[in-house]
């Protein structure tokens, strides 16, 4: 019976550690790395709703991230709307975009869907890049106005950003967990395993994939708003690039697609690897981060498709627990 508590206990410990971290570690570079880790993890968990649970591999998710960043920024700059409201608006806009794009794309299977998402991501980036009203290639700089919660900006300390990032991650995990144990979650897993069998049981593939992409895109967009408020600068290159889309997917695959904690583990490991390679090879722009990403992806895809979580589960298999009544326990609950 002990095994059933292993994962939730580890999660609680990790959350506590994350909450205490900035109080114990004062170095700005380390604090920044921690925030980055939390934000990357949040994006991976959000991506996972569509990519891991529903099995629809999107390599264009940065489009939603950028949507969140740009919508909240534009609302804040042009209309003085609080970025918190902008975050919700950005999420809603991203969901609408996701439904618009998803509806025709979900007709495609496997490789073709992935390729279509790359195309969509590139189109969005190119359009924003060329459209002056959306800032064009130059982007937007957000003013460092008076620090404060409502304005969603803090100049002196990074601490508030850390806790907001942590809260957003926990919220995203909560949504993921709730979806996984709901009817939507069961249907998504069925669609991923055997789409025809799912249809024969009354499941409309398109409808549930659309639910998944709407949820996933909303969550990713909120991360985009957080990014904009933290960096105080957004442009197509930093918020809409295909390499950002890759990173979201990589983090989930590395940690374990279709698991709750996988992307978090993946974000932790990836951040460590990035920092390590930065120290060893000295700076980016020399392609070393790409080499590391590429090798990681290939090795994981070929040898350990279930990611870190899959590896851990194989090493320490959980015993089958007795049911409480007719309660169900499955893959998605971890």
């Amino acid at each position, binding site marked *: 019976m002990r095994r059933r508590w292993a994962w939730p206990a580890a999660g609680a410990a990790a959350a506590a550690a994350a909450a205490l971290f900035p109080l114990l570690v004062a170095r700005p570079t380390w604090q920044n790395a921690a925030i980055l880790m939390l934000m990357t993890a949040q994006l991976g968990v959000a991506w996972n709703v569509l990519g891991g649970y529903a*099995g629809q*591999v999107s*390599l264009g998710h940065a489009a939603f991230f950028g949507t969140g960043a740009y919508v909240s920024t534009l609302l804040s700059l042009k209309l003085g709307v609080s970025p918190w409201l902008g975050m919700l608006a950005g999420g809603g806009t991203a969901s609408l975009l996701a439904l618009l794009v998803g509806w*025709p*794309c979900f*007709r*495609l299977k*496997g*490789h*073709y869907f*992935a*390729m*279509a998402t*790359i*195309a*969509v991501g*590139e*189109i969005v980036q*190119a*359009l924003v*890049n*060329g459209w002056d009203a959306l800032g064009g290639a130059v982007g937007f700089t957000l003013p460092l106005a008076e620090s404060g919660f409502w304005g969603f900006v803090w100049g002196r300390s990074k601490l508030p950003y850390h806790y907001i990032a942590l809260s957003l991650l926990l919220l995203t995990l909560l949504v993921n967990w709730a979806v996984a144990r709901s009817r939507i979650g069961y249907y998504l897993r069925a669609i991923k395993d055997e789409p025809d069998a799912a249809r024969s049981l009354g499941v409309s593939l398109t409808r549930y994939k659309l639910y998944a992409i709407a949820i996933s895109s909303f969550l990713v967009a909120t991360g985009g708003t957080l990014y904009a408020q933290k960096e105080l600068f957004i442009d197509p290159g930093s918020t809409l690039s295909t390499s950002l889309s*890759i990173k979201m*997917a990589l983090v989930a*695959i590395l940690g374990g*697609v279709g698991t709750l904690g996988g992307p978090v583990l993946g974000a932790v490991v990836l951040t460590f690897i990035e920092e390590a390679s930065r120290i060893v090879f000295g700076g980016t*722009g*020399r*392609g*070393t*981060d*790409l*080499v*590391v*990403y*590429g*090798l*990681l*992806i*290939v*090795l*994981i*895809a*070929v040898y350990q*498709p279930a990611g870190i979580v899959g590896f851990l589960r194989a090493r320490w298999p959980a015993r089958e627990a007795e049911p409480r009544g007719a309660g169900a326990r499955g893959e998605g609950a971890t």
Partner: protein
Amino acid sequence: MTAQLLLQTLLSGVLIGLVYALVAVGLTLIFGVMDIVNFAHGEFLMLGMYASFWGFALWKLDPIFTLPLTALLLFAFGAALYHAVIRRIIDAPMLSQIFTSFGLMILFRGLAQYLWKPDFRSVDHTVVEGKVAFAGLQFGLPQVVAALGAVATTGAVWWFLRRTRLGAALEATAADREAAALMGIDSQKMFALAWGIGAACAGVAGALLSTYYPIFPEVGSSFILIAFVLVALGGFGSVAGAFWAGILVGIVEVLGGFLWDPAYKMVLVLSLYLLVVWLRPQGLMGKA
């Protein structure tokens, strides 16, 4: 806009389109034989460009003369890549297949950036530099030679597939792997062959392009997207489809850039891809 200018634009679109077609032929061949989309295909082109570049920079060898060597080099590389990596994911879940070739794409780009620096390179003063006049229109000689070379290579692949026993074996494996295996055709050899030819096609295209196109580690990215479009448009697995789609898309791209805005060329091409893939998933000439 004069009729002459229009004609010039159209023909230059055809010229680049023929090169696009060659790249797509390699991609569609790999897909047709083993149902794997090679996201790293643009990197074969990039390697072909760099091979030509270094031959020129180090030993003053003209890319046109080193073309056969580049083709052989990329053929060997493609086949070797198959044996080292792709072979292991033939029957793996689709997620693994996507990410393997995707990871290779990133790996090769990173390696190129690391080994040869991100700077733009070019090959100057080749044997084909200059212009050629035709019916009152002017074209760059490298572009024309590249187009002719692409057509010749595409034709050679076509001839190989249709007129040789080995090519027939390849097509048989593409049609039905198990049936072909039962007839004594070694699937592993066919897969390696497909990767070799596919890589060689992209490599030759790269070598031809190196006479006038800038060479840099990410150069594969623009070509891979267009190759996807061609393969989808022409039909997954159809060499002829890729060829005609190449000409069409080359014209669309150049016309679009001319009539609308060069910055939006890719948007146009990509939108065309999405349109085709939504309305007619099997492409113009492809098997469903």
